[in-house]
């Protein structure tokens, strides 16, 4: 199963984190910090897999992908396929892209709730629930409509794009 989904920026600030096994908050923070300390030292053009045994306990692996200023990270166990997890990051980011068009870090910071909504449409209880970003978008838009009935959420302008920046 997927144990956690984490987004941190290149300064180590968490932007989104969700753990699918109960993890106390200080431990979550500890995990995020140690992941960052490994990732920030990764040279370019190396594989995107890191054995997580020393950071995350036995039988855990980590796959990450860097988009502009943000690391997208999945932590999972050996029951998942590494490359499939890697693709899932791509799907998540493509979905963000559809949602915000030219998505950047600021979108993610300020539309924190949206990030959660999208994630929940894709991963449930550590399992992939939907891999089709069209379908995810449909669900998210439905939810937005319902939200807008009472609250008009405005997206805030952005600086650099993630996918293209």
């Amino acid at each position, binding site marked *: 199963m997927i144990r956690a989904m984490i987004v941190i920026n290149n300064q180590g600030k968490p932007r989104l984190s969700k753990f699918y096994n109960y993890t106390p908050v200080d431990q979550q923070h500890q995990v995020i910090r140690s992941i960052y300390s490994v990732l920030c030292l990764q040279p370019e053009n190396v*594989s995107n*897999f890191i054995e997580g045994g020393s950071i995350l306990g036995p039988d855990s692996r980590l796959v990450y992908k860097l988009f502009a200023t943000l690391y997208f990270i999945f932590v999972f166990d050996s029951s998942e396929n590494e490359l499939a997890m*890697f693709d899932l990051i791509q*799907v998540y980011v493509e979905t963000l892209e559809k949602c915000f068009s030219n998505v950047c870090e600021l979108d993610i910071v300020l539309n924190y709730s949206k990030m959660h909504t999208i994630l929940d449409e894709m991963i449930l*209880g550590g399992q992939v629930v939907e891999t089709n970003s069209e379908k995810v978008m449909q669900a998210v838009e439905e939810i937005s409509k319902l939200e807008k009935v009472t609250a008009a959420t405005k997206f805030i302008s952005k600086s650099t794009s993630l996918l293209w920046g």
Partner: protein
Amino acid sequence: MALSGMRGLSVFISDVRNCRNKEQERLRVDKELGNIRTRFKNEKGLTPYEKKKYVWKMLYIYMLGYDVDFGHMEAVSLISAPKYPEKQVGYIVTSCLLNENHDFLRLAINAVRNDIIGRNETFQCLALTLVGNIGGREFAESLAPDVQKLLISSSCRPLVRKKAALCLLRLFRKNSDILNVDGWSDRMAQLLDERDLGVLTSSVSLFVALVSNNHEAYWNCLPKCVKVMERLARNQDIPQEYTYYGIPSPWLQVKTMRALQYFPTVEDPTIRRALFEVLQRILMGTDVVKNVNKNNASHAVLFEALALVMHLDSEKEMMSQCVALLGKFIAVREPNIRYLGLENMTRMLMVTDVHEIIKRHQAQIITSLKDPDISIRRRSLDLLYGMCDVSNAKDIVEELLQYLATADFAMREELALKAAILAEKFAPDLSWYVDVILQLIDKAGDFVSDDIWFRVVQFVTNNEDLQPYAALKAREYLDKPAIHETMVKVSAYLLGEYSHLLARRPGCSPKEIFSIIHEKLPTVSTPTIPILLTTYAKILMHSQPADPELQNQIWAVYSKYESCIDAEIQQRAVEYLALSRKGEALVDILAEMPKFPERESSLIKKAEDTEADTAELSAIKLRTQQQTSNALVLTDQRPANGAPQVSQLGMVMVPSTSNVDQNTVDQRVTQSNGTLSAVDPQLPVQDHAPAGDILGDLLSPLAIEGPPSVSPQSELNGVPSYEGIPGANDALALAHVGDQESTVKPIGDIAERFHALCLKDSGVLYEDPYVQIGIKAEWRGHQGRMVLFLGNKNTAPLDSVQAIILSPSHLKSDLSLVPEVIPPRAQVQCPLEVVNLRPSRDVAVLDFSYKFGTYLVNNKLRIPAVLSKFLQPVQVSAEEFFPQWRSLPGPPLKLQEVVRGVTPMSLGEMANLFNSLRLMVCPGLDPNACNLVASSTFYSENTRGMLCLVRVETDPADRTQLRMTVASGDPTLTFELKEFIKEHLVSIPTGGKPPAPVAQQPQPTNPPIASSDPGALLAGLL
């Protein structure tokens, strides 16, 4: 108002982002938390929107790493809000802030259930998501039927159903009773017919969890999985939006193939063929393309297909195709694929017999050792370590040594250890081994543990031929300007013992040796000085009558250290000074070290196994040379689940079998010769020997050509047959029973042998004058692959050989068919597969019997598939250890016991014992030097990998007692492990009572072959 609420959140987030340092951030967060707290207190004035705003802020604060220990009630109460926005926030925040053990969550069960059974689909989705993420046991009990209903309902939208599937998966994990196995397997099969790929993906995830728990109940779903694979592979009925970069849902393909790996095999030939067609298409049809994302997706599918092919143990041809593919991958530019290629090759080493094909890629694998990516370097080191054998050890070890000089600091220790183990395991000659270890010390002295240099010393001491060479090498290293302290130790020791063997060489006079060693003394640490002092004494001893000048120099050193503050140094100085004044008598007192008894150490243990193997091998080589016939025996792999299978002939024990076919032919000839001379005077005169001989001799060659069914072994699958007429033979045999008991006594102590095998992976399990049973094992996670070597030591065949494994309930075992007859002086290999289901100390028993002449010898032997074999040593650092240790609060997960009656041993010996039990001792974790901390991961099918931590507190004053604490995440595991360790600490077995071989009521020999038996017909013809 809503707008302002969200703006408030944005303002807060911006504020936090603008904080220049952690301190400012904390102040800002504390201020906000204080604010929220006060607002929540006067709840009356709080609108739902304000509540929503504050709860989001809390969630944001929580993500930043601050504990939010209030407001949970507010979050939960939002769940029952009537309108969507509040309800949504309530659900999202609750699932982030709370966990299944929270009391507040219980309060929400009713509200959640109302949403699930209600008509509003968006509410259903919210509720299912919450339960799927954090639902606990109580949720499982009260919600499972409702969630099931949603999943199988035809009126629900896919959006709801796919969430219901995963929600049910969570509930099933919390309480597996919620799904009634019998009824559910049919429903599951129906779900796998689902057309909507979203629902299907979730259903397959659910299915994976179910089959991993119990595949037996879901055989009916296997064909459906293959159907799904066919549908995807042929791209039939796949909506455009589910193709990802042109590939039909790679995730679904991966999951489905993962599910198939939980079935031990695919029996039905039609289905098997269909599946292999799909797999073949994946293996052949995947190309490396420009688009990175497409590449990743197609290779995700490809690697999963490889794993499935390995699992299905398909035909050799397909396997070599896989290795070829992997060989391609490890050379591509894309680092992810290189990484996975190496990893899968390593897995392949374990799974199937493709060693030779993998070796062809050795050069490329060695290149990967220099890859810029450390993850890849690690993988290639693992792979090289795994693929090393006698034939390539020299190349690989020398590569490792070369790499050591430039390797990352983080990898050196592992590298040094692996090089040392391989050098010892596969040394073609001992001088090479000495070279390797000395180079290792020279290049990476800091990473060479004492174990390693002790081992060299043992080897040199025990091999006289090696001594001058080793002394010379040590002398050469001393000429180097700066050498590692370990090198000083080992060369001082070696030169002290053996420098006199070099005396004629230039620069090797006692005086020169002394001065070059003594030069190093100022640079070494206190523990090394006593070694040097001993060396000086040895030099003096070897040069009796001593050169007065040298003697004075050495005495001066001793006098200097006579008042040393270190007791060890002082004692040695005083004693050596006194002794060396005795002149000639010194020769007797300080004589050369005697040979070491064979000793085990953590490092050596592994290596010794292979030494035994090579010894065994060479003995067999000898045997085959002396007696060319009959060295070949066949074992039939038991056909898997009765499915017709091409027989796999286990070709046995012909070393260097490059020309097996030739051998076979030769042997067939000699064998038939042997048959003719069945009245060989060497053979003990026995009624049935010749018959058995003919049977054995004839059937062996027959079995090579014919299908396995012709061999008479088929009856062996269970209960022995008692056909035949007990007649005169019987009476005859009875007369011998008394003799028999006194003659067939096991050689060596069975209990001791078993115990030794608990600590290592190969060796002799049992031996008597007729039979030797060796065992060799490989362990990986919760699975083990053992091979039993049944050797007939005599010149007459062994008849009625039977081997049955009696497994305790926690082990699944599968022993391949054992041939009924072992020809003279031949050895049979019988693979035995073991799967560990859960932690237990019970052991499997091998019920082994054979007939020699008229007597049946029967032994019940414990199989060393013990708890520790399913442990994987793991080094943990203090940062990992202590949080784990604390998170396991007490019984039943953490158990403590004072153990008395412990076999007294030093801490070092105990550490060795723990390492042999695959509990890795982690030095330095416990500040008290009398304590010992170890860690390991336990694997079983039920628990998967589970970390185990052990702490032992010893009392230096009383070595017979200690306090032991064992902790793990599973109560049974904790208990069993504790008891297991205790057994090993308390009783190093002392002979015990070897289960006396039971000379049973002699049984009639095999029926003199029914006439329908083709073997018998053939025998008759001859």
